[in-house]
Structures are given as structure tokens and as C-alpha cells.
């Protein structure tokens, strides 16, 4: 039974009063980033973005929509799979290992787009066996927002998703913005979502409001900015490992790793082993790593993938191809961040299309 919320202020207030740290989009430094919100007024009302390959610009809107932006540089993985995680410390005497004791913070994510919701599910499959990730994930409450305004770099529909939020959220909102007013159709998808919704001031949504909301989301599916080729990418990429296209893209790629930083499913990490000067205490931490890093594949004195060609191919074939073999699904959700934030403007969908078009090597 969808409810109409005239404001998100009660939602944010209730979550904070309940001990949640509310994280959501906000404007900072010329971009829409994710940060902890003090109140709903921190949301980017009236802001949108214009994205191109290698370009991202903030633009003001005529209406007061807060979620009509896309492809920001942050994704929720910074909270569920933090960039740096201390794993343990150890004392030499007795080899006593101490793991961090604190409970993970209870985050409430406000404004999870359907692509990012799928990305969280993708990371659940990869990292779910890790106790620490599972604890963080279980403690998180997700408020998703359906997409009504996809951007030029968006392609969730051809990546197996769509502008309608799938499973995994506690609450799903659809933003209805007209002139200066903005309201939200809200639907609960879990017991926690039910409880939350029941505690908020709102009224049952009218049939017209429901129809407007559904219609806006459905229309969004047909307004994707680009698309992946409609082919079995897993099989295609196995056949194209020696394609000429890799040489071509290697000339443009800087191996800067931006794509892996902004991608909501990229999960690679490395470990840092440290020791105190006295040699009596040591520790290990885990931190984000990127397959574009020159040492990522280091083995016996050198990298297995020393060339940019080899590293770009690894990233793309993993994301669209071998992720299926390893985790049973595609690693790409079509959010388009890698396209907007690549300084060379490399477009993953364009590369995949070019590979599909190139004749298979004899």
C-alpha cells in the first residue's frame, strides 16, 4: 500500500533518532557526493548533473527534485567495503592476535538508485563470506529511490537492470517533482521498512499519484543514454582476447584506475603488513587496490600484466565476462560512472560494441 510523503525530513529525523547514521547525496566541491546527512535539507534539491565521457558538471534544475542526478564519484561501497579496514594486530609474545572489537556503525543509506542497489547485491555475492562485510551489510538500512531521469552515461537497462528498484531495499521511494513542490511515493519492502513507514506522517497515495510514479519510472527505461551490445558478452570476450581493439584502447587508457575507484562493484583489495619500531607489535590492514596498478599481478620479479593493454583487457573482460564464471552474474550494473570519470573518456559500452563488431580471429 504505497504512502505519499510530503517531506523527507521526518524520515531522516526518525532514522537519526533511532541511532542510524544517515548517508545520502549532497552537493560538495562541484559534485553530488555521498556524505552523512544532518537533516533532509542537506539533500541536493534542485540539482542535476550533465555527464559525458570524461565529463561531469553540476547543473541547477527548474524543479526541486533531490534525486535527479547520476554517476556521482562516490558509491555505497565506501561504507560497506571501506577503503581501509584494520584487520588485526598481533603481539609477538605469545602471538596474541587482536581483532577490532567495535560493532560496525549502523548506516541508513538514503537514495540508493536501482543500479547501485544491484551493485550492493553483486558485492554481497563476492564478499558475503567475509564476516566483517556481512556484519556491516546486516547493520545497514537501505532506502532506495527509483530512477525517473536517467543520464547520457546511463545504461542500466541493457546491463540486466532497469530504473525500477529490485530486491534488497527496506524502503523504495519514487520522487514526484513539479515546479517548487516535491513529494515521494513510498513502499516498504521489509519488516524494518514497514516499521519505519508506519512511524512517518503520510497518507495513502492516490491512484493518480501512483500512476504518475509508475509511468515516470517506466518511461525512464526507454531513455537510457547508451547501451551494451545485446549479445552473450561472456562468450564474446573469451573469443576476443586477441582482438585488435585492445591495442587501440590501450593507446588512450592511462591506467589511472579511476574507473575502479568509482565503480560500485569493483572490490579488489590488498593487505598492508606493518610493524612497530620495537618489533614487538605488528598489524595488518586491508585497503582498496586496482587491477590497473602496475604491481597488481606481480609474480617472480615482474608483473604478469605489465602492459596497459593487458590491464585494460583484464578489467573489462572481468567486469563483463569472467565475473559470470567466478560469481554467477555480470559485474556491471550500467551506472555509467566509469564513462563519466575516465579522464580519457573511454566508454565501456563503446568498447564492448567494437569488440562485438570486430571479426573473430581465425
Amino acid at each position, binding site marked *: 500500500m504505497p504512502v505519499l510523503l510530503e517531506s523527507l525530513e521526518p524520515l531522516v529525523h526518525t532514522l537519526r533518532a533511532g541511532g542510524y547514521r544517515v548517508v545520502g547525496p549532497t552537493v560538495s566541491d562541484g559534485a553530488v557526493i555521498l556524505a552523512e546527512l544532518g537533516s533532509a535539507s542537506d539533500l541536493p534539491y534542485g540539482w542535476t548533473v550533465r555527464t559525458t565521457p570524461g565529463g561531469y558538471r553540476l547543473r541547477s534544475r527548474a524543479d526541486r527534485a533531490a534525486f535527479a542526478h547520476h554517476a556521482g564519484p562516490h558509491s555505497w561501497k565506501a561504507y560497506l567495503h571501506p577503503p581501509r579496514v584494520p584487520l588485526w594486530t598481533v603481539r609477538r609474545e605469545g602471538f596474541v592476535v587482536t581483532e577490532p572489537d567495535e560493532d560496525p556503525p549502523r548506516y541508513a543509506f538514503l537514495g540508493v538508485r536501482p543500479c547501485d542497489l544491484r551493485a550492493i547485491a553483486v558485492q554481497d555475492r563476492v564478499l558475503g563470506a567475509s564476516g566483517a562485510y556481512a556484519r556491516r551489510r546486516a547493520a545497514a538500512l537501505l532506502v532506495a529511490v527509483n530512477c525517473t531521469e536517467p543520464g547520457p552515461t546511463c545504461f542500466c537497462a541493457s546491463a540486466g537492470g532497469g530504473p525500477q528498484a529490485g530486491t534488497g531495499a527496506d524502503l523504495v521511494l519514487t520522487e514526484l517533482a513539479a515546479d517548487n513542490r516535491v513529494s515521494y511515493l513510498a513502499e516498504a519492502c521489509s519488516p524494518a521498512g514497514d516499521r519505519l513507514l508506519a512511524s512517518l506522517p503520510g497518507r495513502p497515495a492516490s491512484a493518480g499519484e501512483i500512476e504518475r510514479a509508475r509511468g515516470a519510472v517506466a518511461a525512464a527505461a526507454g531513455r537510457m543514454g547508451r547501451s551494451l551490445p545485446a549479445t552473450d558478452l561472456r562468450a564474446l570476450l573469451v573469443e576476443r582476447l586477441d582482438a585488435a581493439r585492445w591495442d587501440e584502447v590501450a593507446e588512450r587508457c592511462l591506467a589511472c584506475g579511476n574507473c575502479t575507484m568509482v565503480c560500485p562493484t569493483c572490490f579488489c*583489495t590488498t593487505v598492508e603488513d606493518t610493524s612497530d619500531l620495537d618489533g614487538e607489535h605488528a598489524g595488518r590492514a586491508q585497503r582498496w*587496490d586496482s587491477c590497473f596498478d602496475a604491481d597488481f599481478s606481480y609474480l617472480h620479479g615482474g608483473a604478469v600484466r605489465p602492459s596497459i593493454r593487458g590491464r585494460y583487457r583484464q578489467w573489462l573482460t572481468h567486469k563483463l565476462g569472467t565475473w559470470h564464471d*567466478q560469481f554467477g552474474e555480470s559485474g556491471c550494473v550500467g551506472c555509467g560512472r566509469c564513462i563519466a570519470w575516465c579522464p580519457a573518456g573511454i566508454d565501456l559500452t563503446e568498447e564492448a560494441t567494437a569488440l562485438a563488431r570486430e571479426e573473430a580471429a581465425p
Partner: protein
Amino acid sequence: MTTVPSMAPSMAPSMAPSMAPSMAPSMAPSMVPQPYQVTARHEECPDTVTLALVPLREQIPTPRPGQFSMVYAFGVGEVPISVSGRVGTTGLLHTLRAVGAVTRALHAARPGDVLGLRGPFGTGWAVPAPERADLVIVAGGIGLAPLRPVIYHALGERGRYRSVTVLIGARSPADLLFTGEYARWTAGGIDVRVTVDRAHSGWTGHVGLVTTLFTGVVTDPGRTVAFTCGPEVMMRLSARDLADRGVPPTAIQLSLERNMRCGIALCGHCQLGPVLVCRDGPVIDYDRGEPLLSVREL
């Protein structure tokens, strides 16, 4: 030329790891090392040692032949090292070569030192092999270490197999591993053949690539089961040679190696195409491995 390992008696390996489910409780994948103490150290050759490790507290589950541990040198770091054997009921043998900061620290470990161990990880060699099979074990350099448990399995179940042949290649006679054990293997009915890339004066054995030892080894390709481990180029040449002799690619197993940071399929480093070497390997068969190993920089 060869030194009799002074620790040989205490390093007497137990029967091949039982194929029955391990007694120890299965452990959820963890990044926390368990303390293991070095009880014996044997220098196989100038840069390679075998360490005997026994648990100080909790014991990791019994490794199967071909599995590896992540071995931690206090304050320095952690590397994947194959289990080369077992000692008693809880002890493990790890043979390692000093090639970087962590392995140099491990190489310097002395009895009494405490290391960290996580594991066992990875797929193991497919043993037991079918009855009446001809086992062919091809080892290059330190590749003999992860194959040693297969050799001891074959020794313990010698009657199960029609023939067992071990072909060992090394850089020079001084670089051969486990030389004090060859006589025991031969006495147990295993055909042991050794070759080196370069010899010193006084060497009366073979000189040449390990593939030159294959002559006459495969008499019935249909019943041959092969296990190979060593430098990747050497494994590929050995596997191809065996396949050319008619051994089915699915009956030829290789042990892969890639950069590993976690060993538990969470860090993404050890990928070889679709294979996560820590989880889907390190042992894979040539049928699966050939198309992957033949792609440059995969």
C-alpha cells in the same frame, strides 16, 4: 654432494592425508593467522628450506595434497606456500625459496620461531587416482614440493597403481630437493629419474630438459594420470608433450601460481581469466588450463 637431512627421522611423513573428511571443524574463511612454531629446519639447497611447523594453539584443517597455506612472517608479510608434507598428526612441512622480503624472512626462521599460518586453501591434486593407473609425476625446481604429498600417497598405496614414475628437473645438482629421500622412494617401487639443466664435473646423471626424460614413460596413454608442477613454461611444455603422447588433457594436472593477497577469494589478485587460483586452483587440468595459459598477459 648431497647432505643427509639431519631431521629426516622426525620428518618421517605420515600416511598420505586421509581422504575421509577432516576431523578439525571447517573454518569460515579468515584473515587471522594461527601461531605455528618451527620445530625443525632443513636446508634443501642454498636458497631453499623445508620448515616443520606445529600448532601452538588451534590447528588448521588437515591439508590435502596440493593445497597451500598463507604463511606469515611476523611484521613482514604473508605469502602462499605449498604444503610439502605432514609431521606426526598436527605438524606441517612447508618448503620455500627465498626470493623476496617475506620469503627471505621465512627462510631465516629457526626452530623456536613462531610463524602465522592460514589455510589450507585451494584445490588439491586428484588423488587417489583410478586403480591400476600409471602415475607420472613431473617436477621442475621447487615444483617438487607440492608434489611430494602425491609421492607419499603413492608410496602408501603402491599396490593400487600399475606404475609410478617421478621425473625431476632442476637447474643443477646442487638445486635438487629432498635428495635424501629418493632412495626410499625407489625402494618403495617408484621409478625416480632426475635431470639437470647444467652439470658440474662429477655428475653422472642426466643433463637436459625434463621433457627429455619422458621417453618410454607413457606406455598406455589411456591409463596414465599425470601431475606436473614447476615454472609455468616448463609445465606447459611437459603437459603438451604428454598430450602429444596421447594422455587425455583431463588426466594431466598442473599447479598454477599467481599473485595472492588473501587466499580466500576476496581480493581479486589471483585471477587467471575465469579461474580464481586460490579457490578454483591451484590445481587445474590441462584441458581447462591450456587455453588460459596460452594467452599472453591473461
